[in-house]
């Protein structure tokens, strides 16, 4: 089971749990497992095209999955996944 660290803004969707576990050999399949337990997470993390939302950063073992294989990034039982909402904005 991979471990997911959930940021404050998403914890309302994980019963306030900071850390949850999910099964899957890839990030995408583990997220599907996670969404079975916490369905409201899906819309917050995945866009209409089935991709990770632009302003959600996901790291597997401290590497941004966008620099790996995205949702196809491989996981194993020791994988640690960190989810962080992007810090972005601006006057415009």
């Amino acid at each position, binding site marked *: 089971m991979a471990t997911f660290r959930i*940021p*404050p*803004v998403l*914890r309302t969707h994980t019963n*306030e749990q*900071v*850390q949850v576990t999910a099964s899957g050999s890839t990030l995408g399949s583990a997220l599907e497992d996670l969404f079975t337990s916490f369905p409201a997470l899906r819309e917050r993390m995945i866009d209409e095209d089935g991709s990770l939302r632009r*302003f959600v*950063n996901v*790291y597997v073992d*401290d590497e*941004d999955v*966008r620099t790996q294989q995205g949702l196809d990034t491989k996981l194993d039982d020791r994988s640690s996944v*960190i989810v*962080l*909402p*992007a*810090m*972005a*904005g*601006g*006057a*415009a």
Partner: protein
Amino acid sequence: MVTEPLGRTTATRFDVSPELWEQLVTLARAEKPKECCGVGIGPVGEVARFHALENVHEEPITRYEISSKDQLRVHLEAEDNGWDVTLVFHSHPATEPYPSATDLALAGWPDAVYAIIGMADPDQPLLRAYRIVDAVITELDVRHP
């Protein structure tokens, strides 16, 4: 490693130390006309350490974005100390320091203070601070030197 939520602050004030004030103003002046950005970490409701970070957005005059790499680095530093992100800071170089629609839409840190410094007049920096939860803005009473 923290496995329980650190808890929410209900503070209505944002007290800025002289050191932090100096860091925020110096950063905003140095980056103008671009927006600057940075993150504070600490125990709940406290900025123990502030990191000025690079604005990597492709339109830095009117937008900011912290790189995912910097964000992870600061996040891990906070976790190592049992802290959380307590401040998300950026500047509005030419406009009022009030959250824009973009700021609201992308405000993903409900436990942090969102502070914006208005630099329309660089000699009179105007710092305002907010808590933004589910796109609802609560302005905080800012005290600075």
